[in-house]
């Protein structure tokens, strides 16, 4: 795909996919979703490994949909889209990981058991 120069629409300045790219994204998303579902419903791995597998599959699907549906690219003309996305991603990571970190520490240091509350 990287071979082709992305086509920017004259009216909207946006890039759009092709039938092939939408179909690819759609099929990959279905496969990833069904894999997650299958792993959890059959209990294929141990608990920790299931958490990791579902998390990783969701992140792969995020990447697939960003590329094939939202057409986020590294092309210089769309660099502000990518830059604002990366900034938002940084914020998301700080919020989610920071919250989990600080709340986990709270539970441990206050002697609270998170599972019993």
């Amino acid at each position: 795909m990287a071979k082709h120069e992305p086509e920017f629409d004259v009216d909207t300045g946006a890039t759009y996919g092709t039938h092939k790219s939408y179909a690819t994204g759609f099929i990959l998303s279905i496969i990833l979703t069904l894999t997650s579902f299958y792993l959890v419903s059959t209990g294929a791995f141990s608990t920790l490994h299931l958490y990791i597998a579902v998390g990783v599959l969701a992140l792969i699907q995020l990447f697939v949909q960003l590329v094939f549906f939202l057409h986020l690219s590294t092309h210089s003309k769309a660099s502000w889209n990518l830059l604002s996305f990366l900034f938002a991603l940084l914020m998301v990571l700080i919020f989610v990981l920071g919250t989990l970190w600080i709340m986990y520490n709270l539970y441990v240091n206050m002697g609270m058991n998170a599972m019993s509350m």
Partner: protein
Amino acid sequence: MSATPMVNDHHTHHFDGSKNVFGFWIYIMTDCILFATLFAVYAVLHSHTYGGPHGKDLFSLPFVLTETMILLTSSFTYGLAMLARNTGNKNIIIGWLWFTFFLGLSFISMEIYEFHAMYVEGNTWATSAFLSSFFTLVSTHGLHVSMGLIWMLTLIYQINKHGITPVTKTKLTCLGLFWHFLDIVWIFVFSVVYLMGAI
């Protein structure tokens, strides 16, 4: 400086939707942060069931998988509507938009059915911190999808009335970003809330 008044400037100026689309993209990014905070709250509170039911006791995975597939398909059919933007045939776009609309409506109907079933069994947002955060996160997504559906109806009306113009194309593109974004958020709701909740 030319003394000639530029009276015709308004009429000759070509509509440039690129700033609208980029501005909408920035909005989507802020919406990411909104959802991130709700996911963080859910991640902290999901084990605080106050003696009530856990996710494992409440969720039906095949039901939610069906919802996921419907929303995923609607994202694809919206893509087909966008691909028809340069065909010059507005009816193809309108056809795919109606298709997407009814898929979105099915998704929302299933969600309302699920919430209602939980509510009548006494599992409401007041039951536990877990269910408060669950309903907040999932219904914020549902509210976004509902807004998208209303927007889709108005867009169908506008494309039907004005045809495929730079303005309607820009609106079609913005709603497309919104719709695909909601599908991505749902992937995380499906994975984090439902699948991880069922492990």
